[in-house]
């Protein structure tokens, strides 16, 4: 199971902060596609991704037990 953590407005879109996804050996890009499909989450193309609190690319491969956080970049000031 992959533990997915949703930040900021993504948390509201999903209605909760965390969700568990079946998906050993999935890439971050595949996980994003799945999250978009399953939960109609918008804007995942531009979010920053952390895997186990370490910055990760779209092609990072996920393993069972990983925690993935999706963090929308912020531009205001």
């Amino acid at each position: 199971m992959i533990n997915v953590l949703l930040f900021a407005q993504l948390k509201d879109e999903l209605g909760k902060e965390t969700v568990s996804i079946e998906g050993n050996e999935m890439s971050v890009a595949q996980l994003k596609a799945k999250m978009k499909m399953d939960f109609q989450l918008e804007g995942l193309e531009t979010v920053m991704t952390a895997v186990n609190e370490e910055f990760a690319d779209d092609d990072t491969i996920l393993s069972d037990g990983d925690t993935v956080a999706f963090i929308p970049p912020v531009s205001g000031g």
Partner: protein
Amino acid sequence: MKERYSRQTLFAPVGDGGQLKIMKKHVLLLGAGALGSANAEALTRAGVGKLTIVDRDYVETSNLQRQQMYTERDVAEKLPKAEAAKRHLLGINHEVEVNAIIMDATAQNLEQLLGDVDLILDATDNFETRMIINDLSQKLHIPWIYGACVGSVGMTLTILPGQTPCLHCLLKAIPIQGMTCDTGGIISPAVTMVVAHQTAEALKILVEDWESVRPALVSFDLWRNQYQTVKLTKAKKKDCLSCGEQRTYPFLTVENVTKTAVLCGRDTVQVRPPKPLELQLEKLAKDLDGSGYLVKFNPFLLSCEKAGERIVIFKDGRALIHGTKDMVHAKAAYQSILG
């Protein structure tokens, strides 16, 4: 050491030696809005040697809810923010040399200001300008501190050229259609929280305590009670065009700049993004509608109106700002909607 800084020098990582360093440093602060005014106040109180503040805007009523220092009188006088900030800072600490520059920052005019600058503090409200800062930071080898906030959310990161990844390593392209303070609103604690991190990082850099500089991106949401740090051990990209081996500093070139032009004979400015976008007009319409704009749209363009100002945005990101001939104002209005 002076009585004024006694509580700061008592803090061991600063000490008398650190205070002397702070008092010799020059910080350039880009932006004098929410993040900018609070950062300016913090560094001036801390006794930085010289502070250069660059901003293109003036103080308005809707700023007062979250922008430190500014008063109702500044609004009445329609003071430019950089100038209003300078006046307040002088009353707070006359020993700090404050340099107020009222201008729309570009790669060209910014570079000229960076000669003896030790640190760049980001208090802008758009990624285009941040990418310019990022390239200049790498080119001139000056650390910078990214900071941003919207709603109850914020983010900050310290970038040390030659050492940490840069913002371009983390963002392949400039994110578009993010929430801005004009569409998502903002509460002051989100500002304050970013500034707390930026000021702490700035002090570490000014006293040259490099080991204490935070090696991670900070992201938080004060309303939803979230706080996350993301380590960047593996984020530096060898082929990054801003900090990699074959660097070209792409954001310093004219092609990568938002263009503005006054339309001949009309009270309208055209704004064109560096590259054509693919906007989701329906989503944008929803955001703007929730933000008090009167919105109409079709598959090709969106028209929105608020406070007598009308903006038409095409699907490729080109926009017409009606009711103005001021290119700086038009670009600001554009970026306040698209980030």
